[in-house]
């Protein structure tokens, strides 16, 4: 796209724009936990590219950089020692999953503070963010992080600025082992299934691709060797947009709008039908007549 602009698919708190003529494939990040060495190149590549400052950390008895992502740290390798017959040291790159049906976008009340580009990237537009934090509630993956100074929320942008000019995201570019790949969704899904087949042949009978249908699939897909235990990797089993957010946006919002408008209409009709309860003043009734 010329000029670094990207067409939008969805916009928070707004009606969806009509799709343009140009077809744009959905882009997807592929993560293979079975060849990830937890080197954290992606963690700092992300920070370096996005000009995010280093966080102050402490050693609390793990190789993991931080307990969780922060507004300045959008990409975290989660380390877990997992016993399953033998010992496994699981490492999974955690970041925004770029859901096909993003809960953050659904929950966001500020128009265009969260957008989904035509290529599937879900991006926060901090200029429009009001810092309400509903996206934090809407996200089934615990991704958006509130920044205490700017009072806005941040997360992985899938390096949309790079993707827009044909470069792969900074984390993908950095990844030394090739456990991260980037391409169209169909390519990546194919790659993931190929890898899962390979793993199954090597005895990882539970190997699977994590692409949860509950959020319409994610544009970050993850190959897990122990697919029966996504929780061991720190992944929710069946992520969906929280019921509360769906109730609010799909039911209560309309119900509320209707009842407010309805209430006003009923009041008006009532007034037209019955009018006010005016008091006949004994003394001044003659001259005052009406107080309003």
């Amino acid at each position, binding site marked *: 796209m010329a000029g670094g*602009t990207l067409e939008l698919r969805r916009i928070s708190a707004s009606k969806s724009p009509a799709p343009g003529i140009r077809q744009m494939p959905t882009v997807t990040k592929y993560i293979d936990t079975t060849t990830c060495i937890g080197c954290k190149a992606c963690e700092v590549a992300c920070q370096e590219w996005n000009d995010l400052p280093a966080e102050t950390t402490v050693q609390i008895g793990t190789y993991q950089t931080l307990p969780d992502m922060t507004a300045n740290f959008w990409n975290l390798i989660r380390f877990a020692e997992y016993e399953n017959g033998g010992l496994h040291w699981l490492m999974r790159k955690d970041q925004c999953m770029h859901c096909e049906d993003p809960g953050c976008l659904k929950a966001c009340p500020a*128009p265009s503070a969260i957008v989904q580009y035509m290529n599937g990237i879900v991006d926060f*537009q901090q200029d429009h963010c009001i810092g309400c934090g509903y996206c934090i509630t809407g996200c089934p993956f615990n991704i958006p992080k509130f920044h205490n100074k700017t009072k806005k929320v941040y997360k992985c942008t899938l390096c949309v600025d790079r993707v827009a000019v044909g470069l792969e995201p900074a984390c993908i570019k950095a990844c030394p082992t090739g456990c991260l790949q980037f391409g169209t969704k169909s390519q990546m899904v194919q790659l993931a299934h190929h890898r899962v087949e390979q793993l199954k042949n090597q005895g990882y009978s539970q190997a699977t691709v994590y692409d949860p249908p509950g959020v319409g699939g994610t544009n970050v897909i993850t190959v897990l060797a122990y697919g029966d235990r996504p929780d061991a990797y720190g992944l929710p089993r069946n992520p969906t947009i929280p019921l509360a957010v769906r109730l609010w946006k799909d039911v209560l919002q309309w119900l509320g709008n209707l009842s407010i408008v309805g209430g006003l209409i009923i009041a008006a009709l009532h007034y037209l039908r019955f009018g006010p309860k005016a008091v006949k003043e004994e003394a001044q009734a003659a001259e005052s007549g009406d107080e309003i």
Partner: protein
Amino acid sequence: MDIPMTRRSFLKIGTIGGLTASTFGFDLKPAFAQVRTLKIARTTETRSICPYCSVSCGVILHTLGDRSKNVRPTVVHVEGDPDHPINQGSLCPKGVTLKENIVNDRRLTQVLYRAPGSDHWEAKSWEWAFDRIALLIKQTRDARLIEKDTRGRILNALTAVGVIGGCTDCTENNYLLVKAFRAGLGVIPLEQQARI
């Protein structure tokens, strides 16, 4: 600084939402958003090699501020060289943060000197330092050069001065160290990191 930069210069979608947002369904027009200006769009690229481990990844140093007078270029970004057959653009967490190795407020920028018995540094000029160090080396060499051993064999060896270094530096400087200090001054204790 711990406030993230504003990522977008401007957005074209500002008017979407707001007062016009109260209709249902699709908007009639596609919408576009301007994404952040690519920060390496106007940089000069220099090909280099990562100075850390021995894999020797190709890196591209992106500099800004060159090609005009009185402007010192600075490195604004470092990224893996995608043409390099080993790293093919990738880097490890150390290579990714190479910019900090170059642009770092802890970098030494002047000659420091600690006098005998002192507990602090003093800033000195290069000229002073070269004069002083050269004199000290010469004094030690003149006093301690072993021209011949006790059996009368010619040695011309200097063991009172040691020279260590090089593995962090380019090959040419390793060679210059060997040439100047061993072939020139006769230094025998010449070592680098290889054994340790």
